[in-house]
């Protein structure tokens, strides 16, 4: 029983990560606004961490990060680490989470996306002596966060549906055990 649930969970997560990655790299690269595309990996990691807590947030984050690492052409582990912590951070806020309230998820997705942007800036730009943080903030980090929040209005709803579907199932099987 338990194994079946776990398998279902893993497959749903893998599916969502897969779709998020494809949306980010192949579809929304054609739908850029102000030169940026939204960050679906941040949306997924944040939403899932918020709905399911720290452990699953970390799992999703680590998986998203590793895939990004493979396709970044750079050293492995950088994105995995960043998304691991984003997932953990979102999981911390699970206590405040109520399913149909949109404010907290959107706020947290925005904050996480900005955090992600700042970390990338520090690691790849500041350390190479590019000090114009104001420019990067206004031209990359902020537009990306705004676009990501905009897109997450829809994406979050879908992720929430998947979560409800899984939870309904888990509840049902819990009942049958009792």
């Amino acid at each position, binding site marked *: 029983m338990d194994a079946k649930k776990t398998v279902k969970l893993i497959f749903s997560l893998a599916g969502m990560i897969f779709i998020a*990655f494809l949306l980010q*790299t192949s*579809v929304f690269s054609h739908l850029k606004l102000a030169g940026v*595309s939204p*960050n679906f990996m941040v949306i997924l990691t944040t939403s899932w961490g918020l709905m399911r807590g720290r452990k699953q947030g970390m799992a999703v984050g680590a998986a998203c990060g590793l895939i990004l690492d493979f396709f970044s*052409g750079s050293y492995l582990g950088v994105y995995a680490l960043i998304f*691991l912590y984003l997932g953990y951070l979102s999981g911390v806020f699970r206590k405040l989470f109520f399913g149909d309230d949109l404010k907290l998820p959107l706020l947290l997705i925005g904050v996480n996306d900005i955090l992600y942007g700042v970390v990338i800036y520090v690691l790849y730009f500041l350390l190479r002596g590019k000090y114009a943080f104001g420019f990067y903030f206004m*031209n990359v980090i902020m537009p990306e966060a705004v676009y990501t929040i905009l897109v997450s209005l829809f994406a979050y709803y879908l992720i929430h549906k998947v979560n409800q579907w899984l939870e309904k199932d888990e509840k049902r099987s819990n009942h049958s055990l009792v």
Partner: protein
Amino acid sequence: MKRRSRTAFPSKYVLAVLTLLFVMLLFASYATGYEGEPLRTICNYVFVPMQNGLEIVGSAISVNNNDTKTKEQLIAENEQLQERVDELSSALTKLRLEQSELETLQELYELDQTYSSYKTTGARVIARGSNNWFQTFTIDKGSDDGIKINMNVIAGSGLVGIVTDVGKNYAVVQSVIDDTSNVSAMIDSTGDHCIVSGDLELMSENNMIRFTDLEDSDDEVEVGSAVVTSNISSKYVPGLLIGYITDIDGDTNHLTKSGRLTPVVDFKHLQDVLVILQLKESGD
């Protein structure tokens, strides 16, 4: 729904263990060039075929946007013919897509003739970089097609970038406008060497990239001079056009000059590229 295993593993420990694991992975890939082959294989078979398909859909969407405008005008002109128009314009969309592809390929073919001394293979861009900081993209050919790391990539009329990562059926290309990219270049007319580096700030403001360390004691280099890859570069084959100089400043040391140049390749609308199947023999 209560948390299932509250007592089993506190998530703090999981975080610590995973952090340690990824830091180790980071050092391993830095020190030994380990690329995580087993996991990468999954990427080969799962992501790349889908990206391939989606990219075609994606470019179809952008063409469709232009088409709806024409349709609207036609509605205004003649409502009665709407159905006929729909029918015809859908046929037209398909034809237009095919024609634009034909044009791109023809351009590439011509380019192929100019750079005929290098053996090349055409490839399609199937995905852009996964974030907004780096100008990288993925192409649909990999080690199976003979692509290797450090092969040069060209398109349209000049240098696009260099292959930084190769999978079985895909390769990641870092373009010359990427902020971390440095290309050893020279001025075509005088042979003076310089370094061309991508710059996110300059690129998003003025569509330009930076060149530095230009030794031009005779003041021969001027605005409009062509910049090509240099013969002393360790990774780039010589003579590929990068762009044209837009402005030049003298450096404070009065020995070298720096400035900006406009790349010749339209990086925003890259669809097909050519990979030069010849590695620079740098002797090291």
